[in-house]
């Protein structure tokens, strides 16, 4: 029996998590003592926003160094900091776009913000986890919060259904993940990533079948979170049913967290068995891109379309995982950041255009938007072109990065399939602009009540999308530094 030692930990390393937890509690408390009538609940958004900002500020401090805490189960390094930034950014943007939305949808409960903050904590745990246990716990913290958030519109059947689907399938997939972890544990005797790696290295890099099986099962569990085919099926339904702001949140935060864990586990623990798992990911990547893009073409509901597009983007990111070089990893980081901006931006537009009882979710409802609300249309166009990978937007640089990584490792075929897919995707992204600019309006646009917070979110997203597209250099460098830790 190995004795369980007293944990040593650096308070700095978990400071952001502590801050977020604290603010989550505060939100809950404030919620209890505030009445809806006086609009005090509107303050909750600002409170949670403050928490996010503080977490971001304090999370920055140990940059450049690598800190281990809790007996090397938790680590703060450039890699996790980068991801923390993505998480906090997506959380912050989500709060900005939620503010008016949840009031309008009458789901203005304090738990909403608290759950978002808690799920962010989960994500941070996933990105920072240095062993499988903390990654698992992070994943569950994140997921359970989002299960609830998905069903937050309690009175709406569609929301209930989404929540139920997500919950049952999520728990089901978690079962596979856990089983995978147990097999790896059984095979290597360790749940710490570094120890697993050294165990495999000790065996000359030749893994035994049980380990391989465990690895496969972990791919299922994480593949579910990042929405990889064939574990993607929950995505369209849940995205459609969830409150739009939560859809936006789900499409970026958990996906990024999934990839954070994916990369860390597979690069750190299974780095030397790259040959074993790359072929699986290879197939998954192709399937994910292709199925996501192809099915997206036929969608008429914008949330579903964005859901399939989100699946397709996961496919591109899997390419980077296959390539498994520093370029691929930093590319993933960059891509996820870019994706955060453009995707939340797009959902923000969707939220702005919706109103109570009429969510305006059919793509055709956007007809004539281009000249009726030029700012929204331009923003939407920007996000769509960015997702399609047209320069000079962030999405292009991200794709460029990832395809470069694939070519660098010699996966020309994968890159070719990737670019073909990106052409297919152009069709449905273009369709949004077609409808906005080139079709006559089929209905009146009701006077929009645009809250300043959501405008801030849209502007931040636009700036981010353009900045990463035109001046990506700084972020690239940071992302490249972040990857060094994995090898």
């Amino acid at each position, binding site marked *: 029996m190995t004795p369980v030692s007293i944990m040593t930990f650096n308070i700095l390393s978990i400071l952001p998590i502590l801050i977020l937890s604290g603010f989550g509690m505060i939100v809950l408390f404030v919620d209890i003592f505030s009445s809806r009538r006086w609009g005090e609940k509107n303050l909750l958004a600002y409170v949670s926003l403050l928490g996010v900002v503080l977490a971001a500020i304090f999370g920055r401090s140990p940059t450049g160094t690598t800190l281990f805490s809790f007996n090397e189960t938790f680590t703060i390094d450039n890699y996790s900091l980068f991801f923390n930034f993505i998480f906090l950014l997506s959380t912050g943007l989500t709060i900005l776009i939620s503010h008016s939305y949840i009031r309008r949808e009458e789901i203005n409960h304090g738990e909403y913000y608290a759950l978002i903050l808690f799920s962010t904590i989960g994500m941070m745990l996933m990105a920072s986890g240095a062993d499988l246990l903390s990654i698992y716990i992070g994943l569950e913290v994140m997921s359970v919060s989002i299960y609830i958030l998905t069903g937050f519109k309690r009175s709406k059947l569609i929301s209930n259904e989404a929540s139920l689907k997500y919950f049952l399938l999520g728990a089901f997939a978690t079962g596979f993940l856990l089983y995978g972890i147990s097999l790896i544990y059984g095979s290597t005797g360790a749940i710490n990533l570094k120890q697993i790696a050294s165990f495999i290295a000790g065996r000359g890099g030749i893994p035994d079948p049980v380990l391989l099986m465990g690895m496969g099962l972990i791919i299922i569990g994480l593949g579910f979170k990042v929405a990889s085919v064939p574990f993607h099926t929950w995505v369209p339904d849940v995205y459609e049913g969830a409150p739009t702001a939560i859809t936006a949140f789900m499409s970026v935060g958990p996906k990024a967290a999934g990839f954070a864990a994916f990369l860390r586990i597979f690069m750190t623990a299974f780095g030397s068995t790259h040959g074993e798992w790359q072929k699986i990911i290879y197939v998954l990547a192709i399937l994910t891109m292709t199925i996501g893009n192809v099915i997206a073409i036929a969608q008429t509901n914008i949330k579903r379309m964005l859901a399939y597009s989100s699946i397709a983007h996961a496919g591109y990111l899997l390419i980077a995982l296959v390539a498994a070089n520093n370029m691929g990893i930093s590319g993933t980081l960059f891509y996820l950041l870019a994706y955060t901006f453009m995707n939340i931006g797009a959902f923000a537009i969707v939220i702005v255009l919706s109103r109570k009882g009429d969510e305006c979710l059919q793509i055709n409802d956007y007809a004539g938007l281009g000249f009726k609300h*030029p700012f929204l249309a331009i923003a939407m166009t920007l996000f769509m072109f960015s997702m399609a990978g*047209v320069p000079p937007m962030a999405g*292009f640089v991200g794709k*460029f990065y990832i395809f470069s990584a694939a070519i660098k490792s010699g996966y020309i075929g994968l890159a*070719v399939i990737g670019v073909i897919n990106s052409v297919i995707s152009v069709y449905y992204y273009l369709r949004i602009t077609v409808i906005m600019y*080139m079709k006559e309006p089929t209905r009146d646009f009701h006077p929009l009540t645009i809250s300043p917070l959501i405008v801030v979110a849209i502007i931040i997203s636009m700036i981010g999308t353009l900045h990463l597209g035109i001046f990506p250099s700084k972020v690239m460098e940071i992302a490249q530094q972040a990857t060094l830790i994995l090898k």
Partner: protein
Amino acid sequence: MDSRKGELIRITTLLVSIVVFVLSLPLYFNFNAHAYEMQFVEKLPWIPSFGIHYHVGIDGISLFLILLTTFLMPVSILASWHITKHIKEYMIAMLVLETGMVGVFASLDLFLFYVYWELMLIPMYLLIGIWGGPRRIYAAVKFFIYTMTGSVFMLLAIIALYFLNHRATGEYTFNLLEFYRLELSFAVQFWLFLAFAFAFAIKVPMFPFHTWLPDAHVEAPTAGSVILAGVLLKMGTYGFVRFCLPLFPEASHVFIPVISWMAIVGIIYGALVSMVQDDLKKLVAYSSVSHLGFVMLGIFAFNIQGIEGGITQMINHGLSTGALFLVVGMLYERRHTRMIADFGGLTKRMPVFATLFLIITLSSIGLPGLNGFVGEFLILLGAFRSRILYASIATSGIILAAVYMLWMFQRVMFHEIIHEENKTLKDVSKREFAILIPLIMIIFWIGIYPNPFLRKMDASVNHLLKQTGEKAQTVSNLQTQNTAVIPKIDIVSETKAEW
């Protein structure tokens, strides 16, 4: 939007474009015709982590294409005077388009090039899609996706070059001039050539990748068509000259028959199909396929006449076909139809217009003394020097050109006026006259005294030939081995770098 504001926007845009044109003129006058090196170079780091620079410069090949762009821009803005719908957005799109086009021709960094290459898709797409004709959406989407399909493969090839260069020199860069020095194996050249050529062939467009063009042209607003025909198509041919030939010389040599036959088929086929169109814009669009077939034939003649002819013909096609679209646009503005059958006998009502139209038609036919001839003849001469058969077949295109253009001209301008609406048509307005006259003056200038143009190209074209020739010789024996079978390439070992 009130009309005064619209007028202000128009005039401002026009002034901006004229200023740009005037600013581009020093490029011509200060251009050192004896140097093949890039001139007016600017190089600033852009994305240092990838070795990407904002690196621009021009040589004798890009000089005229840039001038063509800046010249056609005020012309097309002037031709857009009738646009009233969303005038602000329209003008923005036009100016963004100009940025993209000039950027493509000036970029010396392949990443930058690709960014510009794609960037100008968006405004063009919007121009077609918002201000176009009835089937504008289909045309716009087709244009965008078709072009994008080609260019993504080019992107992959650019990335591959990037790593190949790194492997050879240890330096991460997208600098075209560095890439020129690469010694690539034949197999690599073969595939990279294909990737680049696919993108460019769609853009040119070469047969059989041309079907987006008629649709795009027919639906685009006049100015869109002018820019599309005048400049955008040239990006394809320019790409061949700037990238395919010097980067992949052996592969280019091996592909001479393929490209040449595609060009020849394009020449004849484009002409024949053009002949039987009943929509004026479609007719001109297919004639572009034919004309650009000539350009490609000239480029792949691999001698100075062919390439100089090709570049000249790019300019000529920009002027003549651009002018043709302007003319068609003027007819459309008057009658709101482009069907040839709806016209006839216009000469009687519009004599000045008839004269201008005729000159432009003749320029497009390639009448000696006008610009079209200089390019076409040099191309054919060059092609003839390299492969007599190709040139002989292609020359028949000049017969067909006369057939389809003159037949069109006859049906539109000659005969009695049969349609009542045509009896009240007005001759060209001052604005329209101002649009066409500069074009016609240049048409005559290039036709009668093309030498100043040709001289500025000499050094660059000679250098290009030296590049392709020298590099081709080093691996020339490979050619014979590899022509029969498509080379198998061990891509992984060719490109795989250390982690």
